[in-house]
């Protein structure tokens, strides 16, 4: 799956776990997880669990500091 495909699948995850009124359809790789998407620590935990479920990626070494932007999330998925 290429980066665009990963981003689209991530948007589906954000729609489920980032339920705070943010326009998910317009999210780009540059979006800041905390500032733009409004994801707090528990939201990040939910996001990590959903990524594990959807992509089959081991999220064991993820900490809230691991991801600053959506691009960081895509990088992580590609590397794992």
């Amino acid at each position, binding site marked *: 799956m290429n980066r665009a495909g990963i981003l689209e699948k991530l948007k589906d995850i954000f729609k489920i776990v980032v339920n705070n009124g943010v326009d998910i359809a317009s999210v780009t790789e540059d979006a800041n997880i905390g500032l733009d998407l409004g994801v707090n620590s528990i939201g990040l935990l939910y996001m990590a669990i959903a990524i594990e479920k959807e992509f089959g990626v081991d999220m064991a070494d993820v900490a809230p500091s*691991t991801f600053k932007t959506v691009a960081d999330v895509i990088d992580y998925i590609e590397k794992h």
Partner: protein
Amino acid sequence: MKKGEWQLIDLYPGAHIRVKVGNFYHHGIYIGDGEVVQFGLPFDMYTDAKDVKVLRSPISDFCKPDDFIEVYVYSRKELKQKFKDEVIIANALSHVGEGGYSIIKNNCEHFANFCIFGKKMSGQIDGAYKDVEEMYKKEK
């Protein structure tokens, strides 16, 4: 397993303790004389997992002075399954300096329960997995 409950009672050596930190609870094992063994500092979940270690610390490094420290009171069934308090303390101390932290697989609560029951368990993470399952069900 029938669960016990968290209460605001006096600390005792070997007690499983926790404090609220943001959206989560930080867990540790009280070892007496104002000291605690904890897997990372309260805000270490926000730092690089590889830098988080099991620490023997003064209680002042576990929480702020005005934080409420809760103590886990075991159910009758758990009391039969847990190690003795002195064994819990020895277990906790034997891991001081170790790493391998993971917020999902090996966090401060997993560590405390490992010292107490010999099993890595985290009610917070189990709850988060259930929450995500519920979110997916609602979406469908």
